[in-house]
């Protein structure tokens, strides 16, 4: 007799609808004068959500392929600009009814002798659905256990004490054809006291001075990053081109008042499209 194996909707129980949260804002900036901020969390779904908030120290870096990843440090030493230990969310855990909202207060309690500067933390907001109750299947004695989908959102929190100075250095700009694209790489290094939050723009210009392709992308240089950008080549003819690249302060997703301005950086390189 064939036995069947019942797999509960395997990566969560069969029939459980969507699970998740809405979080705003997507980046938190706190200054030493107020030392507080708030986060709004909304359960947009029809099921109860369990939400938990924690902090960690981390900052974006790039891997060898130029992709942004979050580098986390479990136990930052005293030289690291970590605010993770000082940030306390209230409440830290909550159960949100369907369509309910919760305001989470973030209180920063830094050490008394903290020098002026910018300090970083990451807020980790984890949302899970309500647990499926254990049931006993009457006919076969099987026990069914359900687990919900888990979604995590990690947001930046920047704490600023004193006046900040923004500065960014651009070096090692390259542009090379790669299949149907032009791959642009650059080395961006923060040289001021605040993370450089800006927008990178690139233009591919032909020998006649006409812009034939372009790209725009947000960048975040906490220390140094080597991001990778791609410009679609489409049907550009073979020949000589120039890639003009710049990074300017400000991002479309961040309010202008939270940006520590830095002098825009620019460079250009020549390339040959085969």
């Amino acid at each position, binding site marked *: 007799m064939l036995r069947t194996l019942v797999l509960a909707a395997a990566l969560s129980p069969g029939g459980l609808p969507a699970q998740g949260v*809405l979080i705003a804002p997507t980046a938190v900036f706190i200054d030493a004068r107020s030392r507080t901020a708030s986060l709004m969390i909304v359960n947009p779904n029809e099921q109860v959500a369990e939400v938990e908030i924690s902090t960690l120290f981390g900052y974006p870096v790039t891997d060898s392929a130029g992709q942004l990843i979050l580098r986390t440090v479990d136990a930052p030493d005293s030289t690291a600009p970590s605010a993770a230990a000082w940030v306390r969310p209230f409440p830290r855990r909550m159960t949100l009814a369907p369509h309910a909202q919760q305001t989470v207060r973030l209180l920063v309690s830094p050490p008394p002798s903290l020098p002026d500067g910018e300090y970083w933390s990451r807020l980790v907001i984890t949302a899970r659905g309500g647990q499926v109750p254990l049931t006993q299947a009457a006919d076969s004695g099987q026990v069914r256990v359900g687990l919900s989908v888990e979604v995590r959102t990690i947001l930046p929190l920047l704490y600023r004490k004193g006046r900040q100075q923004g500065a960014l250095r651009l070096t090692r700009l390259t542009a090379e054809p790669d299949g149907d694209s032009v791959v642009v790489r650059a080395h961006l290094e923060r040289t001021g006291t605040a993370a450089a939050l800006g927008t990178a723009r690139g233009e591919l210009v032909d020998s006649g001075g006409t812009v034939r392709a372009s790209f725009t992308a947000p960048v975040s240089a906490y220390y140094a990053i080597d991001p990778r950008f791609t410009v679609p080549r489409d049907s550009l003819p073979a020949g000589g081109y120039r890639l003009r690249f710049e990074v300017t302060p400000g991002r479309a997703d961040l*309010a202008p008042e939270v940006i520590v301005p830095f002098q825009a950086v620019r460079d250009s390189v020549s390339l040959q499209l085969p």
Partner: protein
Amino acid sequence: MRRRLLAAVLLLTAPLAAGRAQNIQVTGIQGVSFGSMLPGVSTIVSRTDALRAARFDIKGAGNSRIVELRFTLPAALSGPGGATLPLSYTAGDGGFSAEQSVASQIGFDPRTAYTATLSGPGRGSVFLGCRATPAANQAAGNYSATLTLTVAYLQ
């Protein structure tokens, strides 16, 4: 001659007094303040919300004059990059108070003209609530719109 002079004075002064009696002043105290909103989440401001509801104060002639109240209601707030955020109003979103108190209002539909009676000294206040409905992908930023109230004597 004296009678003619007196008649002339009376005739000159009468319409000037009637002009002052006809004056009506409408002052926008505050517009609807939605505060922080979330994409995809509607925000409702009640006309009885003293901090966030719109308020207009009316100063007119005495003797409990009857006035017509007419709103020019914006359909949307305008925001960054030309983004618009839809607004909507319901039948009870308008409120009038001869006592000029947010706690003591008579509700009315702000989408149509409303007839109200000013207080004895010619005072009144008009309140407005509203619903804002940001889209799920609403652009972040500051939004605003102009709200206008027109008040006219009916008698």
